[in-house]
């Protein structure tokens, strides 16, 4: 087993190991904690709807299949994984996002028994045509629930207008129509491709012993045929489909999501770029910025206002969301402030205060075993190490951040609005 030890100035350390099956394992011991948090994940999410294995022909699968598979993996021939965890007292869950599917548990007792269950049920799929069909009802209801959710719709409406072809524009759970095409064969096909240990990771944080976790992963996860997975994406134009979209739903105040599509030349963003854009967003309209204060005092935003750098394989955009009587005025003000910063530079004092605040936020993250575990999953998907963030942040300069203003181009912006239904 190949292994590396990483240490941070805060006193934490972790081991990253690669098992003979190709599985990557991260373990951080937190002996003062009562609990342990574990994730078994695969780099497979809703955007992986077309792929080839090795040099084979591309396979296109129905939208929402990664999420469907997540639901089905909880079942086995003799009961579901929930009932196995129920016997140990652990609290278990799973989620599917654009680029990953994660199965997780949190417990204070019998951690190795729980880990054994986790490693077992994720590697033992069991479904028949009948059990697959049964799930359509539950997932169909889940999809409908999201259709009624204004905060979900406002984001996806924006992404649908921002992207022509990239599957990030499609709802993670798919549609009632697309999931109707899912069958056991297709599920096995996706499973056998993406649930290969070389494409997977295990993260364990908390009151655990590293050696025990590593030897369990080595013993329980058998190697599969070494494969190379190629994601297939249609060409994505640099432009956006439309600059504006609106829908009416049951909301009291209009909701908005303003996105700026970024021109990208490579599939993934570098960590330094991500940190610089995150700082830049704070400088433009974070709580210390002049713009935030103005928008708040003018009654244009409230505490729901937020922003993020949304990025993953072959997609990247900045997003500003919130509730406002006048989403267009907020949009204009954000664009104006970006222009202003472009012309006059970044306020150095503001930059250093924000950088200091972000450093504190990174320290704070180490309070929670869950948060650390989720960050391991993030670093597994993107391929950097957990403590790199602090190192990179410390070295970032005001100039580095200024250069990232290139992520904002007015003609690549999309404003999505949810207006109140009559």
């Amino acid at each position, binding site marked *: 087993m190949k292994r590396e030890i990483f240490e941070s100035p805060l006193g934490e350390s972790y081991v990253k190991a690669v098992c003979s099956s190709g599985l990557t394992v991260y373990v951080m011991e937190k002996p003062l904690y009562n609990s342990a948090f574990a994730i078994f994940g695969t780099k497979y999410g809703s955007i992986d709807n077309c792929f080839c294995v090795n040099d084979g022909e591309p396979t296109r699968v129905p939208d929402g299949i990664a999420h469907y598979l997540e639901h089905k993996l909880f079942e086995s021939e003799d009961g579901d994984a929930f009932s196995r965890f129920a016997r140990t007292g652990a*609290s278990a869950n799973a989620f599917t996002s654009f680029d990953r599917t994660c199965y997780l548990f949190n417990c204070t007792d019998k951690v190795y028994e729980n880990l054994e269950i986790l490693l077992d049920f994720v590697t033992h799929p069991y479904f028949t045509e009948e059990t697959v069909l*049964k799930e359509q009802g539950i997932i169909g209801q889940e999809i409908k629930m999201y259709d009624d959710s*204004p905060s979900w719709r406002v984001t996806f409406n924006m992404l649908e207008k921002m992207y022509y072809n990239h599957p990030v524009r499609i709802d993670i759970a798919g549609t009632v129509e697309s999931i109707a095409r899912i069958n056991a064969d297709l599920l096995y096909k996706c499973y056998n491709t993406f649930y290969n240990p070389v494409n997977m990771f295990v993260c364990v944080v908390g009151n655990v012993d590293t050696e025990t976790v590593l030897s369990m992963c080595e013993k329980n996860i058998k190697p599969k045929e070494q494969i190379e997975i190629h994601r297939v994406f249609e060409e994505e134009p640099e432009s956006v489909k439309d600059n504006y979209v609106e829908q009416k739903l*049951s909301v*009291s*105040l209009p909701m908005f999501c303003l996105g700026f599509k970024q021109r990208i030349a490579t599939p993934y963003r570098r960590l330094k770029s991500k940190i610089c854009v995150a700082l830049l967003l704070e400088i433009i309209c974070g709580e210390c910025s002049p713009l935030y204060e103005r928008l708040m005092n003018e009654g244009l935003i409230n505490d729901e206002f937020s922003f993020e750098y949304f990025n993953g394989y072959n997609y990247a955009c900045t997003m500003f969301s919130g509730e406002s009587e006048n989403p267009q005025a907020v949009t204009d003000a954000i664009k104006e402030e970006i222009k202003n910063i472009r012309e006059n530079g970044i306020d150095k004092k*503001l930059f250093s205060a*924000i950088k200091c605040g972000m450093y504190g936020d990174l*320290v704070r993250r180490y309070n*929670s075993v869950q948060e650390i575990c989720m960050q391991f999953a993030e670093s597994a998907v993107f391929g950097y190490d957990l403590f790199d963030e602090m190192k990179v942040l410390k070295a970032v300069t005001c100039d580095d951040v200024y250069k990232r203003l290139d992520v904002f181009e007015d003609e690549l912006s999309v404003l999505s609005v949810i207006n109140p239904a009559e």
Partner: protein
Amino acid sequence: MAVDLTVLSNGAEGIFIKNSRFKTTLVTFNFYLPLNREKVAAFALLPFVLTTCSKKYPDFRRLNTKLSKLYGAELSASAEKLGDYQLLKMSISVIGDKYTLDNEQLTAEAISLLSELIFEPNTQNGEFSENDLKREKRKAIEHIKSEFAEKRLYSKKRLIEEMYKDSPYGIAKCGDIEDVEKITGKSLYNAWEEMLKTAHIRVNVVSDSLPAGLFDSLNARLSSLNRADVTDIMKTEGTKPAAKTNRVTENEQLKQGKLCMGFTFEKSGGGLDTADMLVCSDIFGGGPYSKLFTNVREKMSLCYYCAARSVRIKGLLTVESGIEKQNAEKAEKAILLELENLKSGQISDAEFNSSILALTDSLKVYYDSVNALEGWYASRISDNQLFSPEEFAESIKRVKKEDVVNAAKGIKLHTVFRLLPKEEQ
């Protein structure tokens, strides 16, 4: 796990919750006041106004920049409902001095900042400034309105309103829009004075060590206030069963409907002796091993979510679910059938053991979360002893199946609230 209680003055106490695993210190001021329809909105607005500015930091940009320089110290505010009381919280969380880049002394500074915000607000001539008031009132009104957009929250809120029409617990935790609109700079100032003088105050500190002088300086501030008629926090009433089930249905433009049911327990309270009620509601509809999850959701596919929660201090049990319109009646019947099964003692060993294990496990997890731990000690109001999550876990382990059945037998349906999709035009 050691907890030290320091009685500060009349109706005020400090609780030091020692915990060495975190990289932060959390200090929370909890103010408890009786829920009162006339005053609820002004009280609820206070934590938000107080944590956006002060005499020293008259605008929130300056305040936020200061927080950022304190390594992103987090200031938070909330107004909650706890039994028949309103709980106003204001807190600051700051990273330990040893984690700063240049060994800066943040903790003392952060705590005095929070104190200044609460005790030295930005007021003039006995009034809060018009500008701050206007902004925070608008935000409060928008927040109340946005609850309407979240149908899950809205349905739950409507259920509680229907169940407690004439009692304090039915009051919305931040008041209604009309109440917020009526607040003036002067009335808010009066509310602030009343809060300081009459609220029961509990200051919780979750940290490796108790910051020096914290409780002494607090005592000095409180003793100058002439506190009198301080709120007694032990008087929450249980819920009386309904003579006849109250049924309310509303229709809206939606794809999915919501079904919310409210039940009463025979007893209520906040002590260690309510463990049976918690286990009962958990087996009914708590975790994925519960009757509602395994049968109504998984086997019958009647709802995407279907969960029971208990508010033991009020003797209240609620069930919330998301349903298709055509399944509304079927789901209600299925939920009631599971309750009948519980009453008649149909509890498998697996259901019972899973529930005990999951509940005790989740109580141990409290010690790993700063906010959960603080919240635990802020919520222990109706019982004279400040028992720990671990002690409550011990009580749960002592619960027997027959205790659960007995608790279930006392459960009565009170109100059914349904939010259903309108007919297609």
